[in-house]
């Protein structure tokens, strides 16, 4: 499941809560649309982690949330063995 939202509003609260309860950890992509910069990425275990990520964000920023369990590896995986 992927969820996009506007952080100041933090819409879809129940959907986000369910995402953390049922499918944590959650990969959070913080996009800065039309600000000429690449996204920041965070791995959040809880909603509190997410709140810490969103607290300093300004207007116009977008969050895209993905459960790590939904990620697909479409290329050859990098495997490190010791």
């Amino acid at each position, binding site marked *: 499941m992927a969820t996009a939202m506007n952080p100041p509003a933090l819409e879809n609260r129940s959907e986000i809560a369910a995402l953390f309860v049922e499918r944590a950890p959650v990969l959070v992509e913080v996009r800065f649309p039309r*600000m*000429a910069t*690449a996204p920041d990425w965070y791995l959040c275990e809880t909603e509190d982690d997410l709140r810490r990520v969103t607290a300093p964000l300004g207007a116009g920023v977008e969050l895209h949330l993905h459960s790590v369990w939904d990620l697909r590896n479409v290329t050859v995986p990098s495997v490190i063995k010791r």
Partner: protein
Amino acid sequence: MANPNVDEQVLRVIVNRASPRPADFRLRKGENGLSLFLGSMVPTTRIIDAVQAAGKKGELTVAVIPVSLLYDLGLTIVATPGGTADREVNAIHVEARFPFLSRLILRLKGRTVHDEFNERVSPRIAQAATILG
């Protein structure tokens, strides 16, 4: 705003490191073109401050990209409003996009704009971009 000349430069805000990486110049789904600011019209410190104010993390700097390279890669530069809270910075925002015909050809080949941009264009930009000293 007129199209920039080949001898001009555009800017992208990146995390400061030894050299730019292709990941600094990738298109995300939903983006029509690579978001950039025109160079030399607003102090770079002001551009960085505007991006930092939105919450971008890390020690930021500016990667300088020659407009001629973008034209050589078959891109057009389109003025669009910026997304920061600084009106002057927003006024110099542009996007580097594939023109309509290129997008059409890509579609006929069954290739997405993002794949083409990220696999062919992003590495070339990273190679040519210089970090503002």
